[in-house]
């Protein structure tokens, strides 16, 4: 019976198409790390195209955060809203983008749960390509969130003295830091069992990083212990540097500290991510 089926198969058009498809004479050579990485970035962009809902939060969160904190604290903290906005907006930009980074771990974990990641792991490609490619794709989301926050800020009366160059450099610095911070969330994405657990744990990491910082208020009124944390919190340095760049008062060491923190985060957490990625069972 088996032989009979095979004979039938030989003559069907389906079988000959299949034959032609698997008779691959011209095998390409392996793609470069850059090309493999960019293919994964392309995938991340395709996902935005097919699932535009995932942009809801990067568009709505900045609007809610900016409006809420500006009018909630503006009068009380700075006397009037416009004065506070000059201080707050770079900070709220930092917070918005950092909150968006948790989706990195979330999407990674979803890929693992759905089995897509094992297919990637079974390919002969540069190993970090799927993760690095996804992180680069995520910067598109961060950029969208930044543009919306800035546009709303400008409409509300934010006037950056650093001009266009200062604002663009501020956003770029923020993107570099967000990329580096994402390696923490890729670790959570690889370690935890469900996408929702990743989301919850990531929020726990982000809360002290963003709220216990100088994003909302000048730390000089805080208790000593909290001040000490705020002073070493890399997010405070990031907010200060972004403020400096956008306000045209930046200093070399402000930016330097952020870059050091970004390099440090990457050096520590990227290898842990890759180790977990390789040995995942």
């Amino acid at each position: 019976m088996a032989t009979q089926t095979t004979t039938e198969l030989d003559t069907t058009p389906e079988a000959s198409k299949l034959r032609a498809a698997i008779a691959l004479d011209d095998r390409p050579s392996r793609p470069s790390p850059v090309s493999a990485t960019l293919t994964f970035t392309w995938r991340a962009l395709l996902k935005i195209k097919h699932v535009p809902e995932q942009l809801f939060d990067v568009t709505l969160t900045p609007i809610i955060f900016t409006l809420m904190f500006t009018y909630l604290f503006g009068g009380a903290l700075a006397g009037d809203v416009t004065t506070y906005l000059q201080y707050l907006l770079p900070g709220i930009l930092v917070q918005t983008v950092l909150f968006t980074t948790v989706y990195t771990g979330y999407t990674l974990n979803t890929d693992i749960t759905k089995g897509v990641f094992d297919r990637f792991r079974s390919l002969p490609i540069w190993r970090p390509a799927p993760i690095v490619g996804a992180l680069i794709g995520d910067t598109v989301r961060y950029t969208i969130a930044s543009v919306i926050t800035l546009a709303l800020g400008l409409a509300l009366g934010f006037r950056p003295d650093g001009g266009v160059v200062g604002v663009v450099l501020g956003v770029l610095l923020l993107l570099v830091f967000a990329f580096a911070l994402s390696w923490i969330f890729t670790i959570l994405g690889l370690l935890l069992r469900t996408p929702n657990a990743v989301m919850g744990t990531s929020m726990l990491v982000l809360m002290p990083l963003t709220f216990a910082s100088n994003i909302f208020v000048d730390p000089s009124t805080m208790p000593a212990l909290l001040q000490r944390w705020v002073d070493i919190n890399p997010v405070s340095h990031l907010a200060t540097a972004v403020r400096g760049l956008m306000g045209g008062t930046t200093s070399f060491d402000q930016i330097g500290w952020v870059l050091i923190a970004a390099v440090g985060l990457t050096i520590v957490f990227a290898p842990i991510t890759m180790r977990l990625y390789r040995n995942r069972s």
Partner: protein
Amino acid sequence: MATQQELAIEARGLVKHFTSGKTTTKAVDGIDLAVPEGTVYGVLGPNGAGKTTAVRMLATLLRPDAGTARVLGHDVLTDADAVRSVVGLTGQYASVDEDLTGTENLVMLARLYGFTGSRAKGRAGQLLDAFGLADAGSRQVKTYSGGMRRRIDLAASLVMSPKVLFLDEPTTGLDPRSRNQVWDIVRVLVADGATVLLTTQYLEEADQLADRIAVIDHGKVIAEGTATELKRSVGEGAVHLRVADSADRARAAELVEQVLGTEVTLAPDPYALAARVPDDGAVDVGRLLPTLADAGITVPEFSLGQPSLDEVFLALTGQPTDDITEEVA
């Protein structure tokens, strides 16, 4: 046949234990496999027997705790990238991206294998066409039916025309028509020289496709051979009986044993019993019913058939598949 065939897959003493808390599961506990090139090799076993873990180790997705494995001569540990460039993988854990369209998935994989620009698109189109998915190429994979989904998974694992293909339960959950399509695809692949390692829970599937079968249980190979050899080891066939009165079952079992000369299995159902039919041709199965009738035992149901996977397991392990599944899971 007498000449020594090249081995496509060779595993010796593969071990993988998973520890969670205090319990250690011996998922794979010392497996040897030898799969000749150009053949279909079936790995048969119930859920949790260690099939998937074994395949994941052979496909470089999981590091073995002990043992060695080579695929087309490449070591899965020291030469993983060489293994990855010659194998294709399809299974519940190696899936395509549901959010993307069929075309996008295949173009992405083609690029990741090194096809550039229009060649990647061409390769994707050719595969979609060959798998009867040309019309569905622009639809998101999540809208595909079960059979289409399995075909796109297969197409995805064939982008680079792998010489060795791992199919992990390729037909589980498919309707009979889709299942036959998958079987036909496997036959064409092997006819063209590929080696296929296929895991399955279905004896029939292994029987239909596989040249040789390894039966796995508790992470160990408990039997190995051709389908015919395996079935012979449990008897060519089996009789299944139901008695009208459960009180008669013990007596019926005795009589069946006398006629067939084989051991009778009592099913959990108090009315049912089964026995292997020896394949030596010396037994007259036809005598069973008159003998039971003479003893005054009413038999409302009687069937004679091929041994099921359950019976193969019962014969090989002494316990039904359900028990095994529960223990391991």
